[in-house]
């Protein structure tokens, strides 16, 4: 109350002063009144204030609405309205909301945000969408058309018909006619059903479903048959979506497991620290982003070689420091590498932080591509699927086409024979382990985009990795690929009806039963190498 009084006194003082200083004060006092109507306690009053701004012909209206929507329209302690340009830290750079001139930095203690809630956010978005219908920028018009679907009322129907006439872009035109058709459908117009047929958009479906449960028998029939067609298409899309989810989960499993498929599968080393090598790759991505602030995309791309190197070097250290002394003693190797995994985790906790680190997704990995209205594929997952396949192809190439690959296969199949042929088995051991570890690092780089980068990252993937390798058949890269992808798909198919917890259990039980039947996995190694 006291503050209100203060502002009232202030405005008494400010108006004559302002009038002297500025010739256009008349114009601005109207604008101030508009903004003042936003700085009120109840959200209902704010909604009225927004409506007033929409009705006013002020050309700054859209800017104000956008600033309000973004939470950047604020009021300073001296009563001025400002737009905050960056709200990080304790002091924020601001500009005047009326004139747009920069006002330097203000402390957050001195600024009062004009708060909005989700209802106002909806109102603002619709208001901006209506303004943007006439925008010259095509992307704005597209967003506007997208927004107006299902929000057309009698007031908007008239102007909208005109806009559709004058619109050049086909997509905008189609969307807007659908939006208009939903309105016509609500008015009970049977012909509108034809315009909506085949659209997979949820709002269209809702509108049709509502019409199908109405009173008018003609309309009900038309809506029902349109709805049936839509439901059929949606079923197909849902199946495609589940498949995509499965492949995406599967590609994560493949990435996490493929390094292990080399160290465990090919070399036969049970490396419990494999998960922590993945973690190192993820932390490398984080470190890269710290080194290159503001360029998350570039940092991510550079993290691919860097993550590989860091994890490979760590792998070499582990191999030279511990594993080489424990050759042929799997139980001791298991315990020693488990110890290493704990050491690495605690090291990260002490040196960096026990808290998770933020890894930013670059622009080109955020959001999704809409295939149609019912199916959109998330971009980050798509990149990871591609990356997993690329890593797999690269590994296959190394194992099949290079001298290193040949030597690795020779050493693992018959160490003594290979050595007598002049192959330096120790060197091959180091390189193989480095390769497997480096690939784990690559997995970490990819996982940093999907999950938390923290000290526990590795633990979450170690069990899954062993599961995939054993299921696929130890020593077989193809097996790992097929096993990872199929486990992913099985999991995602089961999840909707069994729940996430049960789906995991079912998959685990399935693998246990499968291994009972076929102990060597999906693709067992054949020949003499498998006997040893």
């Amino acid at each position, binding site marked *: 109350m006291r503050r209100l009084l203060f502002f009232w006194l202030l405005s008494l003082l400010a108006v004559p002063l302002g009038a002297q200083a500025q010739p256009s004060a008349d114009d601005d006092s109207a604008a101030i009144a508009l903004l003042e109507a936003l700085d009120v306690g109840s959200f209902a009053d704010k909604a009225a204030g927004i409506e007033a701004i929409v009705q006013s012909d002020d050309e700054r209206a859209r800017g104000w609405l956008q600033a309000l929507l973004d939470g950047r329209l604020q009021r300073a302690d001296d009563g001025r309205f400002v737009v905050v340009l960056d709200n990080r830290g*304790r002091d924020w750079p601001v500009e005047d909301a009326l004139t747009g001139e920069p006002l330097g930095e203000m402390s957050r203690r001195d600024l009062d945000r004009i708060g909005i809630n989700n209802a106002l*956010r909806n109102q603002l978005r619709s208001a901006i969408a209506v303004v943007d219908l006439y925008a010259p920028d095509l992307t704005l018009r597209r967003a506007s058309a997208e927004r107006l679907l299902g929000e057309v009322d009698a007031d908007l129907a008239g102007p909208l018909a005109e806009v559709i006439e004058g619109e050049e872009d086909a997509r905008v035109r189609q969307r807007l006619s659908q939006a208009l058709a939903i309105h016509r459908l609500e008015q009970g117009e049977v012909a509108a059903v034809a315009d909506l047929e085949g659209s997979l958009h949820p709002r269209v479906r809702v509108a049709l479903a509502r019409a199908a449960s109405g009173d008018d028998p003609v309309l009900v029939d038309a809506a029902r048959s349109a709805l049936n067609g839509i439901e059929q298409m949606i079923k197909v899309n849902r199946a495609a979506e589940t498949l995509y*989810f499965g492949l995406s989960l599967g590609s*994560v499993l493949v990435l996490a497991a493929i390094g292990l498929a080399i160290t465990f599968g090919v070399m036969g080393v049970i490396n419990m620290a494999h998960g922590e090598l993945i973690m190192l790759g993820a932390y490398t991505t984080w470190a890269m982003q710290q080194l290159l602030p503001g360029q998350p995309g570039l940092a991510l791309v550079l993290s691919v070689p860097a993550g590989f190197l860091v994890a490979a070097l760590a792998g070499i250290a582990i191999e030279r420091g511990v594993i080489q002394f424990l050759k042929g003693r799997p139980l001791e190797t298991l315990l020693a590498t488990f110890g290493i995994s704990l050491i690495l985790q605690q090291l990260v*906790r002490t040196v960096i932080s026990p*808290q*998770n680190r933020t890894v930013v997704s670059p622009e080109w990995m*955020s959001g999704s591509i809409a295939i149609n209205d019912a199916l959109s594929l998330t971009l980050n997952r798509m990149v990871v699927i591609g990356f997993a396949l690329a890593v797999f192809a690269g590994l296959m190439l190394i194992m099949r086409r290079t001298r290193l690959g040949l030597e690795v296969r020779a050493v693992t199949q018959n160490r003594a024979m290979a050595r007598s042929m002049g192959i330096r088995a120790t060197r091959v051991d180091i390189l193989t382990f480095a390769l497997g570890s480096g690939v784990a690092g690559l997995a970490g780089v990819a996982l940093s985009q999907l999950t938390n980068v923290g000290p526990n990252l590795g633990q979450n993937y170690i069990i899954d990795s062993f599961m995939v390798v054993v299921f696929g058949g130890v020593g077989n890269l193809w097996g790992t690929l097929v096993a990872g992808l199929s486990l992913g798909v099985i999991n995602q198919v089961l999840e909707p009806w069994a*729940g996430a917890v049960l789906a995991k259990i079912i998959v685990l039980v399935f693998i246990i039963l499968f291994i009972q039947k076929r102990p060597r996995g999906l693709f067992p190694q054949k020949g003499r190498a498998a006997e040893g």
Partner: protein
Amino acid sequence: MTLSHRKTLRLRPLTTALLTASLLGAGGQALAQEDPIKVGILHSLSGTMAISETVLKDTVEMLVAKQNEEGGLLGRQLEAVVVDPASNWPLFAERARELLAQHEVDVVFGNWTSVSRKAVLPVFEELNGLLFYPVQYEGEESSENVFYTGAAPNQQAIPAVNYLHDQVGVERWVLAGTDYVYPRTTNRILEAYLQEEFGVAEEDILVNYTPFGHSDWQNIVAEIRRFGSEGKKTAVVSTINGDANVPFYRELANQGIDAADIPVVAFSVGEQELTGIDTGPLVGHLAAWNYFMSVDTDANYDFIDAWIEWTGDEEAVTNDPMEAHYIGFNMWAEAVRKAGTTEVDAVKDAIIGVAVPNLTGGYAAMMPNHHITKPVLIGEVQDNGQFDIVWQTPSTVVGDAWSDYLPGSRDLIADWRAPMRCGNYNVASGSCGGSTAAEEAEAALAE
């Protein structure tokens, strides 16, 4: 070996008491004053929960240091005793025993997960210790030795659901949670509440549980999207705990679920958790707490400044459980002053009715059921990782230990004042411990 070890542990408090008594008799008052008051801190500094609990350890250390600067308590200095239970539930019980029996601390601030609290409960009751528990929890508990400074369900979940129903007009509900006791009990209360109070039909409630640390949210988020596109206003009530929230919110953003269409209200996501996420696409999603860092009061700004100074990190954030420790610590200090001693039974009696300022511009009072009064705030996520308060209860809400919406606990109240001194008094049968609510709740969970 084990037996004799136990015996000495049990005998120890007795001998100490005798010793102290004889010392006091021999004019050892001056000596006793030299002794610092010991404040135990039982928070995980390693393992899964280190993410959340480390800052709470720092908070208590900061509060102890501040109290010492102001001259300590009863003319004595305070000393923090820190142990690390390493996110390992049985280890919590061992460390609690170590604090109480070995270090003989006067009070303990600690725990985060309900399962760890359940693990230390018998230890605190056996050795008669004091525990201040700072995290929102599922209720259905009131121990003589524990003070619950976090929210009970009626101080967080129920008001949040009311807000969504009354202000946002939500008609369909997704109850998504991590698979353990807090989300399961909370969701059971919420389900009963929604059906009883708002008459929500069963097909309009979707319940979903995921394991700790779940990272593949594609299917669940897609299901939420479908569930929410049936024409009725839909909201997600999330009791998803810990770092599983980061991939969950990422997936929400990537699948384009907008807060204005399907808002997610979270009970375990605070400023600390949001530091791991780019909040740009999450603007408008909600959280219900009793404190937000964005609260516009001088007490809060002072607390934030002190915290930034203590951590030396300009970007350091504060959160709700930190405020709970702030309140709990000040309440305990006030009770010690009132009782004139740190002796557990005296402090326990003195603390009921103590009121101290909270950080949101009001007062928090300790109630006879060992829960405190709190305002309930609903905040919307902003693009700078902060919450903007959009709604709050007109006055503070008294924490209810036993939910009125579960059949087993409906008739129970807790009152630790004389002469009742009972944590689960059954009003219907008029007897203490007359109900098997806890067992019933557990049996219902098991089904």
